[in-house]
């Protein structure tokens, strides 16, 4: 009797597995995507740049300043602040902006770069720190996750390292 019940359960389970297999593309995948979307997880700030702090309007484009990103546990990155100039297509040929990163009303860095006409041309530029809280970058491209100036679909992404770092990658 017990063996019969076990067999019935086993075959029921196997049938259920088959049902799961065929429902993957129609039901399971959309449902799973929704669940993950609501799970409250986010991409590590070292990759995503963190959360938006403020947006600064400029003629024709805007500058999005992000919250500072600090390394977690033994994460091998320098603390940095991300700045995004968007949209990239609307930027003037040469950009030179003084930006207040910490919201105290005083500019903290000067970012200067020439926007290539061809989006695939590598981008290089300079970041000049106007106070001791940040580190200047000369002719920077994509050195590391904490020090970069790259073009993405979102815009021109600049990451300025904060002074007082212990390790970098």
């Amino acid at each position, binding site marked *: 009797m017990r063996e019969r019940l076990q067999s019935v359960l086993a075959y029921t389970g196997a049938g259920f597995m088959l049902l799961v297999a065929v429902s993957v593309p129609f039901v399971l995948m959309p449902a799973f995507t929704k669940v993950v979307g609501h799970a409250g997880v986010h991409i590590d700030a070292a990759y995503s740049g963190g959360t938006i702090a403020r947006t600064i309007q400029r003629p024709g484009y805007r500058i999005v300043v992000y919250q500072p990103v600090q390394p977690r*546990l*033994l994460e091998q990155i320098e603390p940095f602040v991300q700045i995004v100039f968007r949209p990239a297509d609307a930027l003037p040929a040469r950009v030179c902006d003084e930006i207040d990163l910490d919201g105290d009303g005083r500019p903290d860095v000067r970012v200067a770069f020439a926007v290539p006409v061809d989006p695939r041309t590598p981008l290089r530029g300079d970041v000049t720190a106007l106070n001791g809280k940040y580190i200047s970058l000369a002719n920077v491209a994509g050195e590391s996750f904490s020090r970069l100036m790259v073009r993405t679909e979102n815009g021109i992404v600049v990451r300025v390292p904060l002074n*007082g*770092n*212990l390790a970098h990658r």
Partner: protein
Amino acid sequence: MAAFSLSACAGEALVLGLATGPVCLASCGPVVVPWMLVQPNGVRVHSRQLLLFLTARLAGYLAFAAALWLVGSTIPRSWPGRSWLFGSVQLLLAIALVVYAAGFPRRRCALAKPSTDLVQIGEASPPRSSGALALGFLTGINLCPPFLVAGVRAAQLATLSASLLFFLFFFAGTALWFVPFLSLGFVRRTPALVTVARMVAVLLACWYGFSGITNLIERALYG
């Protein structure tokens, strides 16, 4: 007044230790886990070994605290000696892991029975105090970020005893985070588990060795 400022200092250190404990755990945890898994199971054995480990870690902290205070300074970020120290400690840690956790070179008993491949490296090591002390001390002087933060504060204190007291309470705060490791004492030691733990110790040793060598080479090349 002095008692009040001392107790305030101790309180500050304890809170700092509790707050930065996860980072200490991240620093030392990868060493502790495989090393404890190669010990025989049993909470009593593990308690003793963990206590020795933490005591040696404290000794490392206090030795550094005393040195910092005597020098009269914090460790500046640009201090070139940091990389030499980091690199050397990491190399020593790699060797200690190989010797005490992975268990090489192995003492071969003349009466050892012929074994299948797994039995010899799958046997839990008899608990060795020297292993706990060596690994504890080396992780203690490994200059993890919370250690440096505590060092900055401790170096500002007026007396050597205050500095040592600060580190003692800081250590207590971080040590609380290590208590869950005692649960490893309940895990049944199969030959496969012990073998895996030894292999992890070797991998960690490779990691620390690689980090140590690259630190030393970087310092040698770039000054």
